[in-house]
């Protein structure tokens, strides 16, 4: 007979049962106009609406230049939408905040800080005591598989390792929503696969809400609960596909699963039909 389960155990036990869906992020009729270098207006996003439920892993999938990153920047509060609004838990997003943690394709680590220094930066900024921040950060560094690299500088790490640090750095200040902007886009195929697996393992522990931008159909289907397909010029959400695959997901099992294969093929076909064929298989 097991002792009384801790809070996190309860969470894991309940995870397969559908939670009552409450909206974490709402994007409401957002349009975004950019001025190009030739001073012409370019409509990057046109009337985009999207709801992301609490605890959901939602991918935005689309060809390059469809405005999918812009949508993530708007949710992050880094970019102000030209029209419409984004809300988090019903409150208008007016700027960046520690409740939404970004992970960028470019890693964006602080090069003058060690791995430990980078991961500790957020908690220290939030006023966590040094010893406590250090202990938490060391645990996170171990969780992302970088034990032993605490005192390395970013320039001494490979791309995959840098992205692991970036993920740990963001998780360290406990954002309610993870905003991942093509986080594995700059990595080689092997590293990318490993990071996808590790991300899923980490995510399945506490099921944070994730908004994940990618141009890879396989990546989107493998990771997500929902895939929002975007079309280009102007960026619109064409369709939101529910990915009804069991969790925890194992990559090797999933690749053989006909349901997974069907999702990938169906989504690819939909892009083909719309002429948006610059999507990765």
């Amino acid at each position, binding site marked *: 007979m097991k002792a009384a389960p801790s809070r996190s155990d309860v969470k894991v036990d309940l995870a397969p049962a559908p939670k009552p869906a409450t909206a974490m992020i709402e994007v409401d009729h957002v349009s975004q106009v950019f001025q190009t270098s030739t001073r012409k207006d370019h409509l990057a996003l046109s009337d985009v609406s999207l709801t992301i439920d609490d605890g959901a892993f939602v991918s935005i999938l689309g060809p390059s230049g469809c405005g999918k990153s812009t949508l993530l920047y708007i949710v*992050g509060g*880094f970019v102000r939408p030209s029209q419409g609004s984004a809300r988090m838990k019903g409150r208008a997003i007016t*700027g*960046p*905040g*520690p409740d*939404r*943690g*970004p992970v*960028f394709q*470019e890693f*964006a*680590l*602080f*090069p*003058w*800080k060690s791995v430990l220094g980078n991961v500790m*930066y*957020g908690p220290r*900024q*939030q006023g966590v005591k040094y010893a406590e921040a250090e202990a938490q950060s060391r645990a996170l560094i171990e969780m992302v598989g970088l034990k032993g690299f605490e005192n390395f*500088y*970013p*320039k001494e790490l490979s791309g995959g390792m840098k992205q692991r640090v970036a993920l740990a*750095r*963001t998780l360290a*200040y406990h*954002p309610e929503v993870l905003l991942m902007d093509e986080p594995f886009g700059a990595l080689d195929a092997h590293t990318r696969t490993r990071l996808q697996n590790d991300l899923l393992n980490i995510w399945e522990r506490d099921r944070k809400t994730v908004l994940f931008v990618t141009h890879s159909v396989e990546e989107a289907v493998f990771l997500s609960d929902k895939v929002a397909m975007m079309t280009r010029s102007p960026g619109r959400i064409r369709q939101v596909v529910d990915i009804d695959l069991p969790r925890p997901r194992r990559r090797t099992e999933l690749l053989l699963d006909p349901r997974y294969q069907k999702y990938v093929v169906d989504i690819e076909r939909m892009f083909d039909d719309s002429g948006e064929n610059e999507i990765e298989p």
Partner: protein
Amino acid sequence: MISGHAFLARLAPVLACLGLLAVWQAAALALNNDSFPTALEAIRAIPSILGDKDALINILASLRRMVVGFGIAVTVSIPLGLSMGRSRAVASFFNPLLMVIYPVPKAALMPIIMLWLGVGDLSKTLVIFLGVSLPVIYHSFEGAKAVEEKMLWSSAAMGLSAAQRLVRIVLPAALPEILTGCRTGLVLALITMITSEMIARQSGAGNILFNALDMGEYDIVYAMVIIVGAMGIGLDALFESVRARLVRWSEPQFDIPLSFS
């Protein structure tokens, strides 16, 4: 253990110096001109200058002005350059101003400054300040402009305000570039220090040099050139060792040493 190659690389600067002195010695002997003393004569005059209390006070006064001018310039220029690099409004306000000052040799302003502020420390320090400011502003500006947007966004998400981002993200991120500007500024400080003393003769290393020139003491003139040059090399080496320590995180693994450090 030091390998043969590494030992040679260490020795190279010394060999270069010795080579230069040898060429000088040979040329002076060949020309046999009163106004061109040999290297040995010039080196022999050095102890007499450094042993003289007045000369030493003069040289230290020069150094003091240089350090003060450099220090104030760096303190003012780095925040200004960084703000210009991050704010279009600040940049467009100060840019025209700096464009006008940039091509003017700062020593050429010396007579005007002397007219207003006299020939004392204030004028000379001001000229040094002006000489140092521009490269430091320029490099701080470029460094701040080049800071990755996503790095600033990441820190904004952690809750850093705009002012905190300037001090805690932009400053360290731009530090390698800023220090490159400071290194240029240090050499310019030495140059403007000597020229200011050449124009406003009253005290300083430049004063000793030009007085000796007037008196026809050419060995002293050349000895002063060596002393001022050695000061430059020493200060640069000192600065470089501090710089290397501060930005070790940004240095490539293999670096060709550009100084005598």
